[in-house]
């Protein structure tokens, strides 16, 4: 199920939040509405952590992560690093990395199995990504843009990429990522997909300018409607099984 929301009249919610299958990071500030929307949707399943990174609110664009780990830029302060380590479950490796390109969220797009990175990323960073996040790393561009983390958003079930991606590129990326991909827009025609929406395997959040058409494309490519129905069955199953003898 996809939810529309705003951060302080700004529809670029992917800038102020980061969503994975194991946790959700949210920027401080703005009204409590932003945080409480995430809490009501996610708090039963995963921790929702309020944080800043490098003293700024653009947490979604500065960090990259999946259910196994979280990568932070070198500009992250010690207190922020400690706060994140404390708030997230121990299985999640929280690592601060020395990388010249410090907006990791713009340079790295990943799910739990594969990561696409900026072509100029350091070799050591590439190894760290493979290590900490447990993914296979590919250096790619999307529709000629090197900021792969900005122009695509993908989960383990599907992905949305820059609207001007060619069919050949779409096929190539789809083969690399092993998920179905669709070229589309978010927030009423914005091409910066990852800034306008965040997604994990069972839910997505988009900026409130997202049209109904864009929302239905998102729900279908990320298989969110199916995810919801299977969740309902799971919940029912828990209540149906009474006792084990």
């Amino acid at each position, binding site marked *: 199920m996809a939810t529309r929301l*705003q951060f*302080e*009249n700004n529809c670029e919610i992917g800038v102020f939040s980061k969503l994975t299958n194991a946790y959700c990071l949210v920027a401080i500030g703005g009204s409590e*509405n932003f945080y409480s929307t995430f809490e009501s949707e996610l708090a039963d399943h995963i921790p929702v952590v309020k944080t800043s990174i490098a003293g700024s609110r653009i947490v979604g664009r500065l960090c990259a992560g999946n259910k196994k780990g979280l990568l932070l830029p070198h500009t992250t302060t010690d207190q922020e690093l400690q706060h994140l380590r404390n708030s997230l479950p121990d299985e999640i490796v929280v690592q601060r990395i020395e990388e010249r390109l410090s907006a990791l969220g*713009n340079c790295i797009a990943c799910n739990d199995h594969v990561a696409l990175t900026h072509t100029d990323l350091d070799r050591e960073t590439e190894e760290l990504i493979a290590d900490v996040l447990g993914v296979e790393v590919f250096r790619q561009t999307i*529709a000629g843009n090197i900021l792969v983390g900005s122009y695509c958003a993908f989960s383990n079930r599907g992905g949305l990429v820059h609207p001007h991606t060619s069919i050949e590129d779409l096929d190539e990326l789809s083969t690399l990522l092993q998920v179905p991909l669709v070229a589309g827009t978010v927030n*009423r*025609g914005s091409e910066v997909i990852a800034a306008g929406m965040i997604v994990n395997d069972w839910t997505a959040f988009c900026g409130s*300018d997202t049209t109904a058409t864009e929302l239905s494309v998102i729900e279908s490519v990320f298989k969110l409607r199916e995810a919801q129905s299977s969740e309902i069955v799971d919940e029912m199953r828990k209540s149906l099984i009474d006792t084990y003898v």
Partner: protein
Amino acid sequence: MTRRPTQRLCGPRTRPFPFSSFGRTTALVASTRRQSSSLKRHRNNILESPGKGYTKKALKDKNIQPESSSEEDDEETIQADFAFFDPRPDDFHGVKILLQSFLDNKQWDLSGFVDLILGQTTVGTVIKIEDAEDDTPFSVVTALNLGRYKKHRCITEIKDFLIKVSQKDVSRDLSMLLEDGAHNVGLLVSQRVVNLPPQLLPPLYDALFNEVSWATEDEPTEELRKSFRFKSYLIATKIYKHKNADQHKKTSKGLSEDPIIYIKPEDEIFQKISSWSFTFKLHTEQVAAQELRNYKLTGLVMAVEADKIPIFRRELHSLIDGP
């Protein structure tokens, strides 16, 4: 009929919104080339006046030095031609960014408000760089009839916000304008980038008020024609107020600094001819430049009678174009 001689205006080069390194990088990397927008002619005999659709306003041989960023060459001067356009639905994102802080930091139906502005093509202007690859709006100006749009959520939210921040003595005047007199009140919306050349302001406001008067004759229905016969204009804007402005009134010492700095020069003229005005505190985060460290960004609301507008136009011309 001879056309007025056009001159070249040099101004800051188009920069993609937002004015950030990220924005610049993405604009450089993006390979798409947009079509240059078609210019709409508002009236057939437009050649006589510097009216809507196509105006080149410039200053010969005068280069306006833009602020240089650390990434670009020092003191780069750029040629730019600004053109006036009717609002179009494509301008949504640019105009939305310009109006981001219109109602302080309150969360409201900004998207609906922008749609309202862009839907009114007969009155309203957007300034863009002519033939630029990206058609980012640099300025938007319009007048919306509060009565005509009173059912829209954004207009209700604006009204509630203004009533909430108003002080006791003007609240009555304000509510009269907003409730009973709404069908005669035009909300004047004017926002632009801070470094827009001031030479564009007289033609911009002339275009707006000309369009309002043309609309009273040209609109297809009597109801629409009536909706543009504004009796007064309501303006919500921002100024820099000196932090010690109230204290200084009590002492007899002269102020070494101005009590109020107007971000937009026309606001000073508007306030002079306004029927009433009030200021209110803003909650948005303020970036304090060194020169402005003693000043606080403050909201200002004023009402201007429509028959004072010719005075405004005259004073604006003499302020900007000089004696």
